[in-house]
């Protein structure tokens, strides 16, 4: 195999002045698995999306099977032999397995879809990926692991020579993950070039022939896997030697100044979960003290989100108790939780939090305008004033109350959502945050951390947040609970709370 | 949805129009016994086919598709009573003014061999095949409101004649009251055959008999709402409008209200409104001596009698069993007839 299947050279891409990719090289020959590692926002997804044709790179070349491209459309990408299996699969639930595999490239006979031929070929492809489903099954009835295999079979049907797997095990069970690992090994023997994106070092150790680590849009590490230790990789990912909390590469101010000192104990507990159980988690016991910031660290699907949403009343708790201060509360809907002074900033901003066409002011204040109203008439003056104070407090940019939320950056949208619960008209005792900085740029991320820290320090708000980003956990939390399969599997605090410790803690169970 | 999708649609859909014209048909007077049969092909097949004798006919199916019309309820009630006198039971369909539903229901009846079917086809051409199947199955088929190639007999109405009666009466009034001068607006319908016939009868008769009267507008309108807004618009341009003639009583009633709302007294001597159908609100207005002065009317009782008598006549093997339902003009002096019509409608 002289010519590598995939060769990326000097790939560069900026978004509004922020370099997401900066001269990245990546070479993957056929029959090799190349692991791609890095923090959220390190540039992995930008790289994948350039490869898939989602947007054109500013500079650099993408060479697939010997043909060089400076930019690709999604169609050209597929035609060149690139197949990307995203975390959120692109199979169509309402169609059968065979229909999905041949979607957009249907086999026809006399102008009609030749079902029989499609199903025969599909059966062969499914066998190649060792899927147990039948070509005639509806995708909606299949478990996640099988759906993923269907998508891989679809890639094979298009004679892909480069297969990109984006955190493929994030939504899979342990046995499904194991089965997938075997498939990846098979496909490697069949000569595909595989790019494997993951957070899980165990998977890297098991599957990868080579590894590339991205940090801040650059390749921070590239090596053959032989002789790599887990420690080398962690250092490459975090960009520092594993000595505990360190400054996040030069840009941010030294952590010591804005990091609150470890909370002196004992302080009264604001939030107490007493063997709480709900969908996909529990029983969970935990406490968050007044002014304390506690992280729930775990992989996607570990039950973090479900736990937070249950505390907030979006799902009913099936057992256990929930106390705010000394009161027992049993929220059956979000408004109950709010009445108990518990608020949630949801994880999926677009689907669960934002009103894109409504103004910034509406986005921040809608839940509270009734409180500001007099005799059921809105007090526009009070609204303006509260919004003004709020936008200063969270450093909203631009600070324009009338601009629709859609016109703001992700970070500023998140400030609006966060602002709902921390303004003059509405204060809460317990603040729940689910992936507080997902899709938020570095600068706004630091600002949001600042707001949360101030809130805890000055108002004594108990903060409980979920994250799968070790860096974020170390930067923000006083204490971290490791969540695995819906249970608290461990706790890290003080000097133990390091990115390395988090990475190895989570991989123990999953890899 | 066959309804016109935009607002204030003044041109009613075909369906609604049909619904209306069916209403018109309803009101007619029918001299069942005395009527001469419409000659020719329509009755030619009648003689040979009937398999049931008059005494054996126990069921008549009435398929009147415009269930949203007041006439539907009236006809069902009156013809059920008429049938009962002959020991016949009456079945009905619920077509809800849908030609597709009508076709389905008729097919069901033919399959179930309902011995006599009286049907008002929404689309005549589309019903031919069903009628033929009914005849082939030895059933009696009576066409209502027109004639088909395959039928045992028919019940007909002259729409042209109704329009002509109204037009002539209005022209006569214009000559006598206005000295042959003035302004008239017609509320017309041009969407289907029945409407065009009524319109033509009304407009031609009037313009021929009162050539000195200015025709200031001919506007599509069959329901009161449209009649009201169209007449208001016409009045904005011609406040001195004298006559409004409607292709339906409903539309004319809207015109009647528009004139009153622009300040015309209900008894104004120099105003004439007239319509066709013999609808109750119009009959009441005529009875009260308002400037709503005429309606070309059919009597529901006569139609109901025909619905029962024509199939019985076919079954008995009578020659020329079909009937033509005559239309008469009702004016303020016809108090007895108005009372009779209102009684039939209640």
């Amino acid at each position, binding site marked *: 195999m002289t010519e590598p299947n995939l060769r990326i050279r000097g790939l560069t891409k900026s978004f509004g002045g922020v370099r997401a990719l900066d001269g990245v090289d990546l070479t993957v020959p056929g029959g090799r698995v190349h692991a791609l590692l890095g923090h959220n926002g390190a540039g992995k997804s930008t790289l994948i999306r350039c490869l898939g044709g989602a947007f054109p790179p500013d500079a650099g070349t993408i060479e697939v099977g010997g043909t060089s491209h400076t930019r690709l459309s999604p169609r050209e990408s597929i035609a060149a032999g690139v197949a990307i299996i995203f975390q959120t699969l692109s199979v169509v639930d309402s169609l059968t397995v065979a229909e999905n595999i041949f979607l957009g490239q249907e086999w026809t006979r006399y102008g009609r879809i030749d079902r029989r031929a499609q199903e025969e070929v599909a059966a062969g492809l499914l066998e190649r990926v060792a899927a147990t489903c039948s070509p005639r099954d509806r995708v909606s009835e299949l478990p996640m692991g099988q759906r993923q295999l269907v998508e891989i079979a679809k890639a094979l049907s298009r004679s892909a020579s480069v297969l990109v797997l984006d955190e493929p095990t994030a939504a899979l069970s342990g046995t499904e993950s194991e089965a997938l690992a075997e498939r990846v090994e098979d496909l490697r023997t069949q000569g595909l070039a595989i790019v494997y994106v993951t957070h899980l070092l165990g998977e890297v150790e098991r599957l990868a022939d080579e590894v590339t680590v991205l940090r801040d849009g650059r390749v921070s590490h590239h090596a053959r896997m032989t002789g790599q230790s887990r420690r080398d990789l962690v250092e490459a990912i975090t960009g520092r030697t594993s000595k505990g909390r360190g400054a996040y590469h030069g840009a941010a101010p030294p952590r010591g100044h804005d990091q609150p000192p470890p909370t002196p104990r004992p302080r009264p507990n604001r939030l107490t979960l007493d063997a709480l159980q709900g969908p996909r988690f529990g029983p969970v016991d935990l406490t968050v003290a007044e002014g304390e910031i506690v992280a729930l660290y775990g992989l996607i699907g570990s039950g973090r989100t479900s736990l937070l949403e249950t505390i907030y009343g979006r799902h009913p708790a099936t057992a256990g108790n929930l106390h705010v201060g000394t009161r027992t509360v049993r929220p059956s809907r979000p408004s109950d939780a709010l009445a108990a002074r518990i608020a949630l900033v949801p994880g999926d901003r677009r689907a669960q939090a934002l009103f894109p066409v409504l103004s910034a002011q509406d986005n921040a204040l809608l839940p509270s305008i009734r409180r500001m109203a007099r005799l059921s008439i809105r007090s526009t003056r009070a609204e303006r004033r509260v919004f003004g104070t709020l936008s200063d407090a969270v450093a909203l940019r631009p600070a324009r109350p009338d601009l629709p939320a859609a016109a703001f950056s992700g970070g500023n949208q998140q400030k609006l959502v966060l602002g709902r619960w921390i303004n003059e008209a509405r204060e809460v005792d317990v603040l729940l945050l689910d992936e507080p900085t997902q899709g938020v740029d570095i600068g706004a991320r630091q600002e949001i951390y600042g707001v949360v820290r101030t809130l805890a320090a000055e108002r004594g708000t108990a903060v409980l947040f979920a994250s799968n980003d070790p860096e974020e956990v170390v930067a923000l939390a006083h204490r971290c609970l490791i969540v695995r399969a819906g249970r608290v599997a461990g706790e890290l605090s003080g000097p133990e709370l390091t990115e390395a410790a988090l990475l190895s803690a989570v991989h123990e169970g999953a890899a | 949805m066959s309804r016109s999708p935009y607002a204030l649609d003044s041109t009613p859909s075909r369906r609604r129009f049909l619904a209306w014209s069916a209403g018109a048909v309803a009101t007619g007077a029918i001299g069942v016994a005395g009527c001469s049969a419409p000659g020719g092909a329509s009755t030619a097949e009648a003689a040979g086919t009937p398999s049931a004798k008059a005494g054996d006919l126990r069921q008549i199916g009435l398929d009147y598709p415009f269930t949203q019309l007041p006439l539907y309820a009236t006809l069902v009630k009156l013809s059920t009573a008429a049938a009962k006198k002959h020991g016949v039971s009456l079945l009905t369909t619920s077509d809800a003014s849908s030609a597709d539903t009508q076709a389905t229901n008729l097919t069901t009846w033919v399959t179930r061999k309902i011995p006599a079917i009286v049907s008002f086809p929404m689309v005549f051409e589309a019903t031919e095949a069903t009628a033929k199947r009914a005849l082939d199955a030895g059933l009696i088929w009576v066409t209502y409101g027109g004639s088909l190639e395959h039928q045992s007999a028919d019940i007909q109405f002259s729409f042209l004649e109704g329009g002509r009666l109204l037009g002539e009466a209005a022209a006569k009034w214009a000559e006598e009251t206005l000295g042959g001068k003035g302004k008239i607006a017609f509320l017309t319908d041009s969407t289907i055959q029945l409407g065009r016939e009524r319109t033509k009868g009304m407009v031609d008769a009037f313009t021929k008999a009162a050539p000195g009267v200015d025709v200031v507008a001919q506007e599509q309108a069959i329901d009161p709402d449209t009649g009201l807004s169209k007449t208001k*618009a016409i009045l904005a341009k011609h406040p001195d409008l004298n006559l409004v003639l409607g292709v339906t009583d409903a539309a004319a009633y809207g015109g009647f*209200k528009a004139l009153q709302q622009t300040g015309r007294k209900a008894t104004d001597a120099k105003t004439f409104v007239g319509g066709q159908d013999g609808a109750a609100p119009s009959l009441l207005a005529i009875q009260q001596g308002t400037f709503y002065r005429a309606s070309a009317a059919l009597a529901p009782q006569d139609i109901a009698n025909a619905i029962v008598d024509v199939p019985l006549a076919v079954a008995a093997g009578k020659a020329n069993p079909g009937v033509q339902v005559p239309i008469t003009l009702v004016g303020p002096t016809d108090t007895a007839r108005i009372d009779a019509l209102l009684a039939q409608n209640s």
Partner: protein
Amino acid sequence: MTTLTAARAMSYGRLTAVRRHPLLAVLAVLVLVFQVTTGSFLDAGNLRGIATDAATLAIVAVPLALLVISGYLDLSVGSTLALGGLVAGWLAGEQHQSPVVAVLGALAVGAAVGAVNGVLCCYLGLSAFIVTLGMLTAVRGLAQQVFPLPLSGFGAGFAWLGGSRIAGVDAPVVIAALVLVAGASFLAFTPAGRHVFAIGVNREAAHLSGIAVRRAPFALFVVTGVAAALAGAIKASVLDSAVAGTSGAGFELTVLTAVLLGGVALSGGSGSVFGVLLGVLFLGSLQNGLTLLNVPAFWQQMAQGVALVAGAALAFLGPRTTR
């Protein structure tokens, strides 16, 4: 969010009335053309006619617009209008009740229809399209069953509703003006008015913000039912008659057209009462002007269709309004 809408969003806040409501320009052109060609379009008498015609449309269009903004839809208003008119006419005519009782009776019936719609759509979560389409047929059937024959002769007292003048303005127009002001005030000045937008834009986010996402749309279903019945009573009063089978037939699409032309997005979350007023006036003027011009029926149909598509295209080019 597409780049187009984002770009529109960026320019928000610096918009003139015409840019925010392109239909305003279309309406102005339409009025100008009709005035020049007919010479009598802008006569007081004609404008009065347009206003009374548009009044019933506006009375239903405003609450329906609010309902659409909150992400729902009511197709049953045509039948509710018929039932309301019949009940009011029956009470005033055959039962010799006072006009007030007659109107209140109609409103109660409208509220009941709206409540059924609201429970099924908001609390049981059924599709508003299907539910209200079903109710369109069911309520029409009910009206015909209860009132198989046309009603007329409702008496002088009842004629007051449609025929009297208050300070020189026809009563239906006064009522419509009150409804328009109430609708606009609700959206602008009350917390619930803002919540309606939030629910329409993102129901899940509104729920997670602690907003009661069922109560407001339910109330709007009831109000829409009441408004349709009120419009029916007004029409019955103006015409002094009501027919179960044909009153308000097709009205649901007329009123929905006015709402959509007025810039209310069928997907919810955007629209304004002023836009709805423009939509209503556009339809009223178009119909009236074409009649004044004595345009033959089929040409009128074509002209109306073309004007409608043109109006919709212009409304599409405008920004989404959320106040």
